[in-house]
C-alpha cells in the first residue's frame, strides 16, 4: 500500500488533503493513541486554517504561493538507495568521526547512522523507536514545545511526520563529541516532514549539528520541526546547516524551552534552498536561562531566506542575544523578523538583537523588522538593523595598503561573514564552514 502511494504521480495543486487522508489510512491501525492524538490535532489545525497568505502579518514578506501550487508526493515508506549511501559519507561537515543519526526523506536510516561510542545513559535513536521505547521521555514533550497549531507547516508536520532523531542526555551527563543529525533529501517532488526531539536533563550538555543536505539539485520540500527541552543548567549548542538543493523548499520550526540557568544556542548557516523559512523560538522559563541565536545567510539568484525568531522572556534575570547577518546577490530576498517578549515579571531582562545585511546587487531586497513587546519596566533591550553596501572607506583603506579594489571587496565580504561565523559553536564544523565559504565569499565580493 505504502509503496504504491509513494510512487503515485504528483497531484498538482491541493495535494495536502490527499496526504492527510493517506496518512490517516496508513496510521489508523498503528502507533500509540497519544501520537494519533497529535496527528489529529495537526490535521484539524491545518484543515481549519490552511496556508497563510501575505495578508498574515507573520508571512507578509514571504509568499508560500509557489510552494502551495507545487504538487508534492508523500513518502510513506523508507527507500534504500546506493547513491544516498555514497553521498551520505560526504556530508560530514567537519565531523568525520562524530556520532551521527541520519534521516533520509523523513525516514531513519540505520545503515547510515553511527551511534556507537556515546556515553552510557545517553539515548540517540529514531523518534519512531523512542515513541515505543521511551514513552515517559517523549510523551510529555512531543508536540508540546512546537504546538501543532502554531503554523500551517507545524500542523502538517504534526499530522504527517514519519520519523526523525530523538536525543536524550540524562541529568548531569556531558557529551563531549558533537552529534550530527543529518537529514538527506533525495527524491524529487517529495515532501518530507522530519521531526527531531532533544531532551536534556538538569546540567546535561550537548553540542550538535542539525544539517539538511541533498546530493541532487532537485525540487522537493522539507518541512522540519525540532523541539528542544532543556532542564535546569543544561547546555545545548548547535549549528543548523541549510545545505540543500538550490531548488528546494525548506520550512522549519524549532522551539526550545529552557529551565533555570539553561543555555541554548543555535547558529544557522544558510547557503542552499530556493525557499527557506525558519521559525525559531526560545521560551526562557527559569531565571538566568540564556538564549543565543546566530545566523549567516548567503543568498543569490532568486533565493528567498526568512528567519523569524521569538524569544520569550517569562521570568527575571535572563539574557538573550541575536546576531543575524546576510549577504545578498542577484535578485535574492532576505527577511528577518525578531520578536522579543518581555513579560511583566521578567525584570532585569537583557536582550540584544542585531541584524546586518550586505547588498552586493541592486536587485536584491531585504525586509528586516524588530518587534519588541515589553511589559516589564526594569529591562535592557536593544536592537539594530542595517542594510548596506560595502563601506567605500574600508575599500579605500585596503587599497591604500596595496590591495586591488576587487580583492579588497572580496576580503571585506568575507570579513562581513566572519564577524558572525567566529561566534559559531562546534569548532570542527565552524572551521569547515569557514573553509568552504571563504572562496565563495571572496568571489561574491570581487564581482560586486
Amino acid at each position, binding site marked *: 500500500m505504502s509503496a504504491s502511494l509513494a510512487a503515485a504521480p504528483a497531484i498538482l495543486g491541493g495535494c495536502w488533503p490527499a496526504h492527510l487522508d493517506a496518512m490517516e489510512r496508513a496510521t489508523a491501525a498503528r502507533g500509540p493513541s497519544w501520537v494519533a492524538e497529535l496527528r489529529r490535532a495537526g490535521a484539524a489545525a491545518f484543515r481549519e486554517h490552511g496556508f497563510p497568505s501575505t495578508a498574515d502579518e507573520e508571512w507578509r514578506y514571504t509568499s508560500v504561493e509557489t510552494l502551495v501550487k507545487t504538487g508534492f508526493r508523500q513518502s510513506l515508506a523508507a527507500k534504500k538507495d546506493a547513491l544516498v549511501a555514497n553521498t551520505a559519507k560526504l556530508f560530514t561537515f567537519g565531523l568525520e568521526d562524530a556520532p551521527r543519526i541520519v534521516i533520509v526523506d523523513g525516514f531513519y536510516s540505520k545503515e547510515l547512522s553511527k551511534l556507537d561510542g556515546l556515553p552510557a545513559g545517553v539515548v540517540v535513536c529514531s523518534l519512531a523507536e523512542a515513541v515505543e521505547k521511551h514513552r515517559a521521555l517523549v510523551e510529555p514533550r512531543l508536540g508540546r514545545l512546537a504546538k501543532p497549531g502554531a503554523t500551517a507547516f507545524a500542523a502538517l508536520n504534526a499530522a504527517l511526520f514519519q520519523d526523525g532523531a530523538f536525543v536524550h542526555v540524562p541529568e548531569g551527563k556531558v557529551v563531549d563529541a558533537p552529534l550530527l543529525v543529518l537529514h538527506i533529501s533525495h527524491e524529487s517532488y517529495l515532501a518530507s516532514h522530519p521531526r527531531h526531539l532533544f531532551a536534556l536533563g538538569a546540567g546535561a550538555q550537548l553540542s550538535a549539528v542539525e544539517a539538511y543536505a541533498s546530493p541532487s539539485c532537485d525540487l522537493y520540500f522539507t518541512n522540519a520541526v525540532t523541539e528542544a527541552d532543556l532542564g535546569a543548567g543544561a547546555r545545548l549548542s548547535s549549528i543548523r546547516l541549510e545545505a540543500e538543493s538550490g531548488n528546494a523548499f525548506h520550512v522549519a520550526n524549532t522551539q526550545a524551552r529552557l529551565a533555570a540557568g539553561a543555555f541554548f544556542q543555535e547558529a544557522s548557516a544558510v547557503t542552499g534552498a530556493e525557499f527557506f523559512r525558519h521559525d525559531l523560538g526560545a521560551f526562557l522559563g527559569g531565571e538566568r536561562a540564556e538564549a543565543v541565536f546566530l545566523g549567516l545567510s548567503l543568498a543569490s539568484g532568486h533565493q528567498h531566506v526568512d528567519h523569524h525568531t521569538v524569544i520569550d522572556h517569562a521570568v527575571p534575570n535572563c539574557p538573550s542575544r541575536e546576531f543575524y547577518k546576510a549577504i545578498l546577490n542577484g535578485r535574492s530576498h532576505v527577511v528577518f523578523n525578531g520578536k522579543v517578549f518581555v513579560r511583566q515579571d521578567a525584570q532585569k531582562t537583557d536582550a540584544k538583537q542585531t541584524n546586518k545585511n550586505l547588498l552586493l546587487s541592486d536587485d536584491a531586497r531585504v525586509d528586516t523588522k524588530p518587534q519588541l513587546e515589553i511589559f516589564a519596566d526594569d529591562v535592557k533591550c536593544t536592537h539594530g538593523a542595517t542594510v548596506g553596501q560595502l563601506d567605500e572607506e574600508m575599500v579605500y583603506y585596503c587599497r591604500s*595598503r596595496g590591495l586591488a579594489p576587487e580583492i579588497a571587496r572580496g576580503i571585506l565580504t568575507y570579513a562581513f561573514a566572519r564577524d558572525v561565523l567566529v561566534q559559531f559553536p562546534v569548532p570542527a564544523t565552524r572551521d569547515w564552514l569557514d573553509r568552504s565559504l571563504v572562496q565563495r565569499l571572496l568571489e561574491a565580493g570581487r564581482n560586486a
Partner: protein
Amino acid sequence: MLEIKDLHATVGKKEILKGLSLSVKAGEVHAIMGPNGSGKSTLAQVLAGHPAYAVTGGTITYMGEDLAEKSPEDRAKEGIFLAFQYPVEIPGVSNAYFLRAGYNEIRKHRGEPELDAMDFNKLLKEKSKVLHIDESLLNRPVNEGFSGGEKKRNEIFQLAVLEPKLAILDETDSGLDIDALRAVSEGVNRLRSKDRAFLVVTHYQRLLNYIVPDFVHVLSEGRIVKSGGKELALELEKRGYDWVKAPAAAGAAR
C-alpha cells in the same frame, strides 16, 4: 622624490588646496603644521589617492612619474604610505591577515617572493617588539575596538612592516600617551634612512622634539605660507599662526 607644483584639489565642489608647492628629497623629514581645516589631511589624502579628492590643477611628481592618474593601490605598491588621521575599522579581518595581504601585493610588485603565514608572523613578532605593540593586537580585527592611541600605533606598525619610501603621518601624535609618543617616534626614527622621506603632519611642537624635522612648513588656506627649519615650529608654538597667515594671502609660498 616628491615634487608638488601649484597643486589645486577639490572635495565635492569645494576647493581645498589652492596652489600648493612642495619639494621633498629622499632622506628628508618635512613637518607640516597649520590651523584646523587648512588642508593638511586633504594634502595627505590627495597624495595617497583617495577617490573623493580631485586634482584640478598643478602636478604631483613622485619618483619622476606623474602621480595624479595612479590608483591608490599602485601608489602603495610604489612606496607611498599614509598613516591615517582617523584609521578605519575593519571588523572580521585580522590585523595579521590584512597586513600580509598588502605586504605580499607590494612584494609581488617589487618582484620579490611572497611570504607565507608562518614567515610573515615571525616578521610581525619582530616588528611588534620594536614598537612595543601588544602581540594580541595582531590577531584582533583591524582597528576594531582599538583605543585611539592603539589605532595610531597600529598605523605606525603597518608602516614599519610595509617599509614605504614616502611615509605620510597625519597627526599620528594626537591621542598618544607620553610613552606611546616616545615609542612611535623611536620607531619612526629607526626607519629614517637616506632612501626614505617623511611628511609629518602635526599640531604640536612636542613631536618634533622626538622626530627632528629638516624642514617645517605652515599650511594655511590651501597653500604653504611659510617654510623654515626646526626653529619655525618653536616660534609657532610661542606666537600661533596669525603672524604667518597675513602675509600669505598677499604673497606666494616658499
